[in-house]
């Protein structure tokens, strides 16, 4: 496992950086928020991403993708996160693309994957039912009825759930809340009768929804992966999601840190640049170290995903913990070091704080993953 980017990966990263800087600077995100955009992402920006081939990065070539791996999509998300670029890339290009590629049958792959590549559909993964991520707490049921399943229950905090065309849903086909067995995954259109979607208003102004399923009837061919294997398959999808989200959060942290460093080099008080004060210098140096450690963790996790290493789960929890704690620290310090301007809405740095706290919760907080890391390490 080499912890450096290949030339192609570096090229992808540079492309993404240019794209984010030129096409979606932070002002782009601000205007979507200010205009109360219903999707909170822009369809023109998304079609440009589609043209660049980004939704197909995890998709095999036979379905039109480039099969370029988790590191490939990770560096793109990292760069886009530096300008807080909102897009369906995470929910569709990572979660949807990976879930269907890995666990879909031939029909599902040929039906959905080319449409993800072409940008015709976006997807959302509906897992959580409680305020803290814990997939085994799934209560939502899927009851077999002849050649159908009937879905009942409610999913919350579904990323891109307010706009996705296709939903991938975790439901219980047997057992009770708390069991990690008896779970199955289903894939269905979001406009299926009986589905009610409520857009959420979250601190980071991104696209989330709570989705209720009331006697939703779907054909048994909607089962994604084998019946009652989702306890494991979902973890595998989630681990890729956690790693990709860590890459995003790393990008957030790097950017908030850079903006803060620039400020320390411009702002004068007491007749001196505030960046010359040791009280601030040492805290900046400590943040630098944490960011470096996070870079290595994310890099190792992305590589482990691409090499299908047996360390994948542990590295996924490692990277989500490191990214969570580092972004937490940096987003707080960034505000404090900016002083008064840092708590104004007019200035961008507050966006990073709000994004940070929401992202920290996605697919398990640092606390959740610290516990999981201990379990996986045998202590």
């Amino acid at each position, binding site marked *: 496992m080499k*912890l450096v980017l290949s030339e192609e990966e570096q090229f992808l990263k540079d492309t993404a950086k240019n794209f984010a800087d030129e096409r979606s600077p932070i002002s782009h995100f601000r205007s979507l928020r200010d205009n109360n955009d219903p999707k909170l992402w822009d369809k023109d920006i998304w079609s440009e991403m589609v043209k660049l081939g980004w939704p197909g990065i995890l998709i095999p070539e036979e379905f039109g993708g480039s099969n370029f791996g988790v590191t490939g999509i990770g560096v793109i998300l990292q760069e886009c996160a530096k300008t807080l670029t909102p897009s369906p890339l995470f929910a569709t290009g990572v979660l949807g693309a990976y879930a269907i590629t890995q666990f879909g049958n031939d029909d599902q792959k040929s039906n959905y994957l080319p449409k993800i590549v072409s940008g015709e559909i976006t997807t959302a993964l509906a897992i959580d039912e409680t305020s803290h991520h814990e997939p085994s707490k799934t209560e939502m049921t899927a009851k077999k009825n002849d050649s159908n399943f009937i879905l009942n229950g409610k999913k919350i905090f579904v990323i891109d759930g307010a706009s996705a065309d296709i939903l991938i849903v975790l439901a219980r086909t047997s057992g009770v809340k708390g069991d990690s067995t008896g779970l199955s995954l289903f894939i269905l259109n979001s406009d299926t009768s009986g589905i009610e979607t409520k857009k959420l208003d979250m601190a980071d102004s991104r696209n989330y929804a709570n989705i209720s399923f009331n006697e939703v009837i779907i054909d048994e061919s909607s089962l994604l992966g084998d019946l009652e294997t989702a306890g494991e398959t979902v973890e595998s999808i989630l681990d890729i999601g956690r790693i990709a989200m860590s890459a995003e959060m790393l990008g957030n942290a790097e950017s908030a840190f850079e903006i803060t460093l620039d400020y320390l080099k411009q702002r004068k008080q007491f007749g001196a640049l505030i960046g010359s004060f040791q009280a601030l210098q040492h805290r900046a140096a400590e943040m630098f170290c944490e960011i470096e*450690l996070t870079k290595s963790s994310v890099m190792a996790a992305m590589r482990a995903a691409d090499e299908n290493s047996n360390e994948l789960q542990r590295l996924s929890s*490692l990277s989500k913990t490191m990214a969570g704690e580092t972004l937490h620290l940096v987003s707080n310090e960034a505000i404090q070091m900016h002083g008064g301007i840092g708590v104004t809405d007019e200035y961008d740095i507050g966006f990073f704080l709000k994004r940070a706290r929401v992202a920290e919760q996605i697919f398990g907080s640092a606390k959740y993953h610290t516990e999981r890391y201990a379990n996986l390490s045998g202590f």
Partner: protein
Amino acid sequence: MSNLDKFRQETREWLDKNCPPSMRTGADPKIPVDEVWGGRNAEYKNPESKIWLDRMGEKGWTMPTVPKEYGGGGLTKEEVKVLNEELFGIGAKQPLLSFGIWMLAPVLLEYGSEEQKKEHIPKIIKGEIRWCQGYSEPGSGSDLASLATKAEDIGEKFLVNGQKVWTSYADKADWIFALVRTGPKEPKHDGISFLLIDMATKGVSTKPITLISGKSPFCETFFDNVEVPKENLIGELNAGWTIAKKLLQHERAFISNFGLAAGMGSKRDVVSIAKKHLGEENGKIKNNFYRSEISSHKIKEHAFGLTLKRAGDEGGKASATASMFKLYGTEHNKKRHELMVAASGINGVAWDGDEFDDDDKNLTRAWLRTKGNSIEGGTSEVQLNVISKRVLGLPSQ
């Protein structure tokens, strides 16, 4: 068979024949274990320690990448990786611990003359000469460049007078590499030279310092009219500061490895210690407060290890990151020892006597020793300054 495969096979055969049984995994626990530092006055409790050192030294494998003409192994990076894997495979003991290897030899290779390299490097590699470091002085700690030990030009030789402090194992060392003031009128950084001094020379004396751990790894070293041949000057006169800084990077890189813990299951593993003193349930540490703290700590440690690996994979960026590794590695090591002591309860502060076992008592001493980690080789605060200014480009006041 590729050249590398051939090298692996030859290495394996050589190790099979030459690595003594007590120097590998599965050694008889009754055979005493030496910490081998070499040198003129080295003593060995186990004669096989000496045999192992001599054989590895002869091969040049204590510094495998150094060219053969200087007594090194002359191996490529790929070959060294193979060598390390083979050594690891049989659980081979490190044949030699040496400040010569970790600090001096790398700067001699860069700044020494041909004669100096040929004179000193082979003896370092074979463990014939044990070196110590003469940097800090009573009045020059973090502000190292203010050092005052002076070396006057008296024709053929330098006349050295002054005092060094925190010289690790000076009482056991044969030679010292020292920073001396040769330019008293120059600005402080521009009047320092890098000088090699034989500790057997008349006028050199040492006195051990007892630390809070009760042990004495450090000494004060005194120079009283010590005559040093001019050929022992490394680099140009008054140009020693550059060499000094370079050596500090090697030192910091070495100290950084403290941040990596002993492996799971070893006596100095925080998990094993916690399980021993707090109990274990279904393989888990019984106390959740400690368990959570230990897991957070292990995560940082893992990330730190990956960062060392990444720096290696990126290659050649050591200078920018040496301070970070020194800072993080030592702070992390201190935290780990605090965790181990806390998880041991009252046994974690055992000092002496029969009521406590050796592991507990050794841990207490080790914990106290770590307090020096973030001071020696440049304090954590100095490292933070270096990162702020050199890496982050923050302005000076």
